[in-house]
């Protein structure tokens, strides 16, 4: 384990222990104390650091003030809330800047100057973030950080969903809601054709559920981008739901094949030009995965700033092969966590492709929601589907 990671992790875990009584109680239940935690880190046995369940950060659980240190400057990162129950993770300015910058890296491809994001515009995301404020503390949607980070990498960024300002102003007079406009398929095609014609590299991505309707409208061979075309998704949505956006379940191999056919990106380029980003609001870690023909899915490779373990759903012991729950250990950039999320257990399942001798995985694939972990009793939803999808 490299020193910088180990040092940051030690600082983060020690700080988390001192700041959060919740975490001390959680550890005590497992007969783990600070000396043990520091020992685990020294021994390179990070999988033994007890995790906080990612769902604990959900608003409905009532633990926001137990899990977040609101005494220091910061804002809440909030999730898009597919379940209608967003997570609130308090984050300081330095960590927020790092997460945003990291999104720029993960969404970026060398030499790409044009970004076409199948996503709501920053205007919409900022408005939704504003609505998410909790007890007067501002909030920012994680999706907004992703878009800000990626937009900073490109010379031009286009988004496919925005507010129709003239019609919205008219509606305001009648006290009606804002009007959302969706980019037409022809406009999207014109942007891609322009890049193709001028030999400019373009990155197409964002939310799978917002890209798919365009794929249905465009024909095979519409473009011939080949190496000029890059694709980067984030936020999942393959089950057919993201936030309150709803659609049919996405068959990943067929979806990627359709992208290749429409944008003219040959299969040999998919393992270097089509990627997905696995991340969730409760961890700063972002894990990139390129398309892997051998797995017929994206193959995610954790980077040096975090560790991923695939663990047994019951015992949380790290697995060497097969499927299990995803546990992420990611220290804070300054080693001082503002939330108790240095070690997080996410209720997602994944399959191990390869792992290190210490049990951390070096590649994983076939990520899916862990069935049966929740029997939601919540009602309502975080934001209206119509606002985003424009339906």
């Amino acid at each position, binding site marked *: 384990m490299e020193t910088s990671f180990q040092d940051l992790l030690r600082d983060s875990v020690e700080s988390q222990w001192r700041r959060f009584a919740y*975490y001390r*109680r959680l550890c005590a239940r497992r007969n783990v104390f600070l000396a043990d935690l520091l020992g685990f880190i020294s021994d390179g046995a990070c999988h033994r650091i007890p995790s906080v*369940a990612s769902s604990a950060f959900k608003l409905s*659980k009532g633990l926001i003030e*137990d899990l977040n240190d609101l005494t220091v400057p910061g804002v809440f990162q909030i999730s898009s809330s597919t379940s209608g129950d967003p997570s609130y993770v308090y984050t300081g300015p330095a960590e927020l800047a790092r997460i945003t910058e990291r999104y720029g890296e993960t969404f970026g491809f060398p030499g790409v100057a044009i970004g076409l994001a199948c996503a709501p515009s920053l205007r919409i995301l900022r408005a939704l973030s504003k609505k998410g404020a909790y007890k007067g503390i501002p909030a920012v949607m994680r999706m907004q950080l992703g878009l800000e980070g990626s937009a900073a990498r490109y010379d031009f960024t286009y988004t496919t969903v925005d507010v129709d300002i003239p019609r919205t102003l008219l509606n305001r007079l009648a006290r009606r809601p804002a009007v959302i406009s969706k980019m037409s398929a022809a406009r999207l095609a014109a942007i891609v054709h322009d890049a193709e014609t001028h030999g400019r590299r373009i990155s197409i991505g964002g939310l799978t559920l917002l890209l798919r309707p365009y794929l249905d409208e465009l024909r095979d061979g519409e473009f011939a981008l080949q190496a000029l075309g890059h694709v980067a998704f984030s936020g999942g949505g393959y089950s057919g739901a993201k936030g309150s956006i709803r659609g049919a379940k996405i068959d990943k191999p067929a979806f990627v094949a359709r992208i290749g056919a429409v944008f003219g990106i040959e299969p040999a380029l998919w393992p270097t030009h089509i990627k997905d980003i696995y991340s969730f609001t409760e961890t700063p870690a972002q894990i990139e995965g390129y398309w892997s023909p051998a797995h017929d899915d994206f193959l995610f490779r954790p980077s040096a700033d975090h560790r991923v373990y695939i663990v047994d759903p019951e015992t949380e012991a790290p697995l060497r092969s097969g499927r299990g729950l995803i546990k992420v250990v990611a220290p804070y950039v300054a080693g001082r966590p503002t939330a108790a999320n240095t070690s997080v*257990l996410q209720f997602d399942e994944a399959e191990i492709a390869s792992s290190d001798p210490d049990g951390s995985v070096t590649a994983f694939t076939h990520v899916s929601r862990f069935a049966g972990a929740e029997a*939601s*009793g919540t*009602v309502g939803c975080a934001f209206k589907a119509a606002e985003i999808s424009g339906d």
Partner: protein
Amino acid sequence: MIEFRDPYIEASKTETTAGLTLRFPLVEAAPLAALLPALRARSREVFAALSPAEIQDAMRRLDAFFADPARPEVRSIVDLIQRVDGFSRHDIERFGLGIFRPLAAYDRSLVGRFVERAFQTRRPVETAFGHLQRFGLNSPFTRCPSPGLLSHFASGNVVGYSAVLTRIGLPLDTASGGGDWSKGAAQVIKLPSTSAVFPMLYLSKMAEIAPLVRATIACGYWKGGDAAVEDLLLAASSAVNVLGSDATVRDVEARAKRLGRGPIVLGHGHKVGAAYISREFASSPDLREKALAGLVQDISAFDGAACYCVKNVYVQGDHRAFASKLVEALGRHAALVSPVNAAMKPVGRGLARIFAGSSSVLIASDGSALVRVADKPAFWFPDEVYRYVQVMPAENIASVAALLAKARRYLQTVVLAVPDADILPALALFGQAGASNVHYPGSAPLLNVYEEPHDGDFDFVKIRYPYRVRFAATNFKTNADWLGK
């Protein structure tokens, strides 16, 4: 392969559960158009051929069959449901089949009588098992439709109650000033996607004991929200009984409204149960143990997934001490009496992980139940459906009723442990707040459809006489009715 058949439905769907292959009738839109006239015609013939008394007598024989757990056939039924649905044997026997015992023994001459009386007075009416009270004023302009076809869009979170739904459409041997209760309705029942075995077993037994009555019912599965099937049914039905999420109920109501003079919608949406434990029961070790013994059953029944399950517990006195005792009792109940359904164990494990560091949530051994402790009374809407409650302090019955009134659309069952003198005042206060069933501890799931409303309504009356009032009832008269059991 276990195949369940319906006399009106040809198509089927097959599923494999717990190593068993099960085949259920499948309702499809195209054949449904022809099915409905045939069902209605056959029902008219049956209701003309059989008197309400004969029908009720046949149903009593059917109830008596399921009310006897010693029968080998009933034991096999319990085994099958346990294997397929995963519910504990205790819950299936005590709460699933348990609803049939009082029905089988019920004096038929009393069916509907207490409701008639409650329409005439605002005072509590003494019933066979408790009291029934009306709230609100009725309109003198209520039309009395003839119940032609009744559709049930049922959900499958428990055993037992789904079977009792069939009673709503069957004629009663009693006549009222409001509507003719002796008219029967043809019925179409949606088989839920889960817990579908019991309704089919019940109808199979009905086909043996009361074949003509069975001929008035068509039962099969369709995907909830399937517009092709449901719009046909909504257009053809005089009443629709919907048990499901609030969104489902609202959706059906909106679609029924669009039909103009559409069917009466009996909406049974999401409910959140409550319990009130008075100082007398919280402070006396003996009474507290008895209240706890009942309460754990009301919380744990069908793993907390039923509408009647207690979620909010208001304690007059030391609520923290009560919460500690409650979590211990819940753990014992899961270990010794009613184990958690294997399918729900990951939910318990997940919640236990989430609250492992919380100082305000008590976790029963191996995550079999969770008790949140709050120091201010509130109406708590559970974030997950499980054996999971919140315990809070309470000033008195009136203050809790006032609190619950703010969440009246979620109210149904209130479990009550109070001195005898407070039972009727509690019925008035909780009934006014919006609750409809005030039960003694340990009996939350045991609804007697003959003298208790379901979500404030007697559906068997409402499809024939769509009144505007609400009802609430107790299932006990004094504490001697349950403390001695």
